[in-house]
């Protein structure tokens, strides 16, 4: 089966925030929720690099492991999804997540224009990147859209953030395919791997983080 992953090529990312906006656009994500964000290190200095970060759909997903109600599940394509009907908004997934992917509604109707700083206060249902694969509702249904956003994978499309990336820095798709694309670039450049977050997300086998006794 396919194994869906993200690669963000730091040699190409220019921190244009297209991925962030594309996500907002496609899923009608409200103000204050950032399913994806761009981080820049060494800002303003030589060696400045930017990375687009969202849920990486880890192999051994910590969020799944710590969820008290097992609201997470993983599709056969490696996409980590969750059921908002089951979620109790405890916030444990956000403690465990390496990438700060789980998001919580800030408070009653955070208005556009207000700054969003609380990562969960009301602790409503958790929201995160779905790899544009919706949730357990019927694929492409209105209910699915309302709770999780669009289901592009079921349309044979890939996450919009990657598809709209201004410099094609963000790659999404079946791992061998995007790795090949990335490898080709490295070959062109003639220097190092610029993949990011892979060890953390995919370096552990499933259950590796389970009890070690």
């Amino acid at each position, binding site marked *: 089966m396919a194994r869906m992953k993200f690669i963000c090529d730091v040699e190409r990312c220019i921190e244009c*925030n297209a991925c962030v906006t594309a996500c907002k656009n496609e899923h009608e994500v409200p103000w204050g929720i950032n399913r994806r964000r761009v981080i820049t*290190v*060494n800002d303003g200095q030589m060696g400045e690099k930017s990375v687009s970060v969202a849920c990486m759909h880890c192999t051994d997903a*910590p969020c799944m492991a*710590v969820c008290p109600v097992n609201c997470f599940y993983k599709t056969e394509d490696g996409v980590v999804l969750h059921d908002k009907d089951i979620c109790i908004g405890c*916030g444990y997934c956000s403690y465990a997540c390496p990438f700060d992917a789980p998001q919580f509604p800030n408070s009653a109707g955070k208005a556009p224009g207000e700054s969003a700083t609380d*990562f*969960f206060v009301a602790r409503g249902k958790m929201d995160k990147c779905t790899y544009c694969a919706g949730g357990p509702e019927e694929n492409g249904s209105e209910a699915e859209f309302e709770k999780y956003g669009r289901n592009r994978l079921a349309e044979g499309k890939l996450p919009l953030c990657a598809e709209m990336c201004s410099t094609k820095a963000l790659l999404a798709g079946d791992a061998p395919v995007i790795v090949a694309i990335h490898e080709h670039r490295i070959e062109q450049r003639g220097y190092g791997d610029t993949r990011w977050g892979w060890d953390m997300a995919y370096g552990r086998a499933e259950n590796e983080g*389970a009890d070690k006794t």
Partner: protein
Amino acid sequence: MSMLQNFLRLMLAVCMMTMVTVGYAEEAVPPADGMSSATPFAQEEGRTAGVKSDTQRQAESGAAGVTQSRIRDAGVFQQTQGHDWRVLRNGPVTFYGGWLLMVTPALMLAFYLIFGPLKVHSAPAGREIRRFSRKEQVVHWSAAGSFVILALTGIIILFGKHVLIPVIGHDAFSWVAIIGKNIHNIVGPFFAVAVLAMFITFVRDNLFKAIDLQWLLNVHLVVTGKKHVPSYKYNIGEKAWFWGGVSFLGLIVSASGLVLDFPTFEQTRQTMQIANTVHGIGALLFIAAGLGHIYMGTLGAEGAFKAMKTGMVDETWAKEHHELWYEEMKDKA
């Protein structure tokens, strides 16, 4: 905030060191499903695998960058502590906590079956004296009630998915958990206040006295009812519960609980992880100790429950259990 944070960190460090000393240092364990963990994505690796980019290295060092996102911690690339927290919580905390909660009642049951309850040896005098004031009763039962509620709902959050999901199913458990979580969150601050009231109300009589030492030296005889050591209002066992349970664990659990309950003060995820671990360990110990207290207050010692229920004790009971206090009361009268 920082003082509390430091304190919590210290607590975690202590806990971690304890774990390590009993052999819980994180080790590489071959994964259960037989996949080689060294190359989980071998076929996708490509030629350049293993060569880490600078950004990757920076990310692993926990470095934070700048971002336009305003969510908390947004500048952090990737945090490794989440994994440690997960291992700790899903591993030792859940496992030993679970056993603790099963073993403690079992021990008490065994104790009960073997030794039976502490009896009042002489016949009741028929005259009652007031052991607990109205105020003390209210404070105690507030704390006790909220303790039980918090313990039950807390147990649901930690163990529910292993115990309840297989029984009542996924959807129903979600109902239970959401209601439980909200009750836990609402009752929590109430409990913290009750604990504080407990402390203020009961601290005077729980100060250590010389006689306590004697009690301590004969503890094995006392608990099995073979010897009687006079004490003031509270004996050393009760004082241990007061200081170790109500005061110390109560403080730990309340403080860490409040950190978790009000995530509105710029707590980072790391703070929350530490608070959660401390809260879990503290609460489990507290529950275990609380079970002991409940045992002693109900089945374990005849007349004890009535004392807190009505506030009154029989003179004989007072004389046998708390002789010095009885004397005091008599003098006062």
